[in-house]
């Protein structure tokens, strides 16, 4: 039996609970992808409406109107303007919220002007009684020429009603609510005559903004219908006023608010949370809790993942028949997958906090508190979110900079975020600190190792702020600071939303960054276990010959290790390492560390894995303590340990500053739409890292 499929687009202002409605309608039947060419998240889900009808629901980015001011908002307009788009909706569901109905309806009236069947969802109806709000639904339906579903996504009320309305979307009126073109009849008449086949409102949207429309002759239109920027904006203002007039007239009858019931929870909370002392104090406590959880609580599941994969690799090695294939699995794939999964606890904890802070409405208060301080460094209050997220991973952090309206502030945020210590640096820091910093306590309770780790975090943050300050002075970009932040009412976060958000973010990390990490691990394994020429192939005989023909007696039991080392030295990766040795010797690194540094230009966390591979080849044990031990006893030609204080500090500084993450570079390219910025980042960050590492080593050695 052929099933019918209805295409639905979910649109609404930010903070209306649009995503909760989406989650209720689709459950876990969601797919997250990207729009072609841009990194805006595209969420599509399916929902069963009746026995033989299904709906595909696309959750569009939140927007206040159809006048886009960011690429996220652009997505909404481009979809609604292009009837040929495969996702062009049969019916639009506008999600509004009972407390902000007036403002939410502005977007609704704009969408109605596009003459697409539209359903109005009024969400958070559970707050109506509390706020003393009454709605005359039949009157509103009549005035707004639509059908209304009164919904509480928190209490799971009204979702069935939405489904029912979607099912019968064909009976919805497609008539606009008001005649927007009356703001300048002469101009709009001309427009109508020039393009008789197009909707006037569509033409108007094309004229007023920079959106790519496929079928409209944009340039032709621009030349004959252009007005000065100020004139256009004046018309847009007139349009907005006209829409609000209509909305106010409608709500005057359709909505009754008992002012006496307006609760002042928001005012009370605001007074504390944005207080000049308590506000900052609370923010720092929150930050502290976040870091505590990321580094302390997540160490338990991380250790578990670590040991599980180490055991798994050993198990595979001992239980599968020895050979190339087993080696690929136990030395390449399993450690590779383990290297990805180990970050899940931290990323999940971070997004738990971020989504709770955002859902509750607290994040806007932080933006409010921090804006002035951040501006001194050329950043925006909104940069706080990327800078915090950067401690987990720079990729989602850089994407999070998208809602910064001012291009210069956004660019600086994108450029400095990679300095923030991300979770990928953590394993590198951890192993190096354990090697070079004694396990001592100062004053009896401050761990020296912990202190070092903290200093490294502060160093990253300080460097981010400092380079923002410098960039702010250098970059000659003048863009207006159109800073507008909505301060939403406080809400208790919905468990379902938070959970789905964490799940999605973790998934996109595992499949996005994870692919690269896994690929690198496999490539590394291959390069390390294969080599050109006779030296590699005949390692066994060469070493045996050396040992047995040696003048001094050598215990034959060292042969396997010596063979492995010889093989490594003559493998592809050994050759690469040897050839770059002159460049890294001044920093205190030998060719083995060199390999690890080079391979971690793809992703930092590869460093530990590479050293593990390099030092443990020929060794059956895969435990981390063994790697640490091996690193500890690694000796230079002059008999001194490789990982002394000078080399260790030099490496720590190098990893703190160098731009070693292909995925971050890729995302910066996408977000800035140019190769210029990622290249500058790569050259400057890595150059700076080289310099500081060089100075540190030469000074300390």
């Amino acid at each position, binding site marked *: 039996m052929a099933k019918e499929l209805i295409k639905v687009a979910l649109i609404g202002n930010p903070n209306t609970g649009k995503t909760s409605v989406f989650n209720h309608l689709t459950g876990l039947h969601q797919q997250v992808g990207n729009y072609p060419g841009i990194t805006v998240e595209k969420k599509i889900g399916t929902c069963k409406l009746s026995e033989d009808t299904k709906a595909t629901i696309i959750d569009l980015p939140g927007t206040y109107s159809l*006048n886009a001011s960011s690429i996220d908002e652009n997505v909404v307009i481009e979809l609604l303007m292009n009837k040929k788009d495969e996702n062009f909706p049969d019916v639009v569901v506008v999600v509004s919220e009972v407390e902000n109905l007036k403002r939410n309806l502005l977007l609704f009236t704009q969408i109605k002007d596009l003459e697409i069947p539209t359903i109005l969802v009024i969400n958070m109806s559970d707050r109506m009684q509390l706020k003393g709000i009454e709605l005359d639904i039949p009157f509103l339906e009549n005035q707004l020429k639509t059908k209304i579903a009164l919904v509480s996504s928190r209490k799971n009320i009204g979702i069935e009603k939405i489904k029912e309305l979607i099912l019968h979307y064909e009976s919805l009126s497609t008539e606009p609510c008001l005649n927007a073109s009356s703001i300048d009849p002469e101009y709009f008449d001309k427009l109508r005559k020039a393009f008789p086949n197009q909707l006037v409102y569509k033409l108007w949207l094309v004229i007023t903004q920079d959106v790519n429309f496929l079928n409209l002759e944009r340039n032709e239109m621009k030349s004959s219908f252009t007005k000065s920027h100020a004139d256009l904006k004046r018309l847009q203002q007139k349009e907005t006023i006209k829409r609000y007039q209509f909305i106010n007239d409608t709500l005057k009858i359709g909505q009754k608010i008992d002012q006496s019931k307006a609760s002042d929870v928001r005012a009370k909370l605001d007074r504390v949370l944005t207080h000049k002392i308590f506000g900052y104090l609370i923010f720092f406590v929150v930050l502290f809790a976040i870091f505590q959880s990321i580094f302390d609580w997540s160490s338990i599941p991380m250790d578990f993942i670590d040991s599980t994969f180490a055991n798994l690799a050993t198990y595979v090695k001992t239980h599968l028949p020895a050979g190339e294939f087993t080696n690929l699995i136990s030395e390449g794939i399993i450690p590779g997958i383990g290297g990805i999964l180990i970050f899940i606890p931290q990323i999940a904890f971070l997004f738990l906090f971020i989504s709770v802070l955002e859902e509750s409405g607290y994040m806007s208060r932080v933006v409010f508190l921090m804006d002035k301080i951040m501006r001194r460094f050329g950043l925006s209050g909104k940069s706080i979110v990327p800078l915090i997220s950067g401690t987990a991973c720079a990729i989602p952090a850089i994407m999070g900079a998208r809602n910064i309206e001012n291009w210069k502030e956004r660019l600086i945020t994108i450029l400095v975020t990679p300095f923030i210590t991300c979770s990928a640096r953590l394993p590198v820091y951890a192993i190096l600190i354990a090697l070079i910093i004694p396990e001592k306590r100062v004053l009896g309770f401050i761990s020296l190792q912990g202190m070092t780790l903290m200093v490294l975090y502060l160093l990253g943050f300080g460097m981010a702020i400092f380079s923002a300050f410098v960039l702010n002075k250098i970059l000659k970009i003048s863009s207006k600071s159109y800073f507008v*932040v909505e301060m939403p009412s406080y809400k208790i976060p919905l468990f379902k939303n938070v959970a789905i958000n964490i799940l999605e973010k973790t998934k996109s990390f595992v499949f996005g960054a994870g692919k690269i990490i896994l690929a690198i691990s496999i490539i590394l394994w291959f390069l390390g276990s294969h080599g050109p020429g006779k030296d590699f192939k005949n390692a066994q005989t060469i070493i045996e010959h050396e040992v047995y023909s040696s003048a001094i007696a050598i215990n034959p039991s060292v042969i396997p290790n010596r063979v492995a080392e010889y093989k490594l030295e003559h493998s592809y990766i050994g050759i690469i390492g040897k050839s770059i040795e002159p460049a890294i010797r001044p920093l205190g690194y030998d060719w083995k560390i060199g390999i690890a540094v080079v391979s971690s230009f793809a992703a930092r966390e590869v460093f530990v894995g590479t050293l593990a591979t390099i030092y443990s080849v020929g060794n059956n044990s895969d435990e981390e303590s063994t790697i640490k031990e091996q690193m500890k006893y690694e000796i230079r030609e002059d008999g001194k340990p490789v990982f002394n204080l000078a080399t260790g500090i030099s490496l720590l500084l190098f990893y703190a500053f160098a731009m070693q993450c292909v995925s971050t570079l890729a995302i910066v390219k996408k977000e800035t739409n140019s190769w210029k910025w990622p290249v500058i980042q790569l050259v400057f960050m890595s150059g700076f890292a080289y310099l500081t590492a060089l100075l540190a080593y030469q000074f300390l050695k």
Partner: protein
Amino acid sequence: MQTTIADLKIGQKGTISDFNIEEIPLKLLEMGCLPGNTIELIQIAPLGCPLYYNVNDSHVAIRLETAKEIIVVIENQN
């Protein structure tokens, strides 16, 4: 009395009479910051900027330089 919304005191209300349209983001207009609407200053950030307003039932924070472009008439001087 005419002034800009940057000069309102916390809790003070005014009616928007005019603004410099070139300097005002469209988003602010769309949130209801339009001539004739009431605006109330709710909170000032500790360092004097941004400012947090309630306009037309929308709660928004904007920077000082934007606030200085919006002119209001203060209804009652208490």
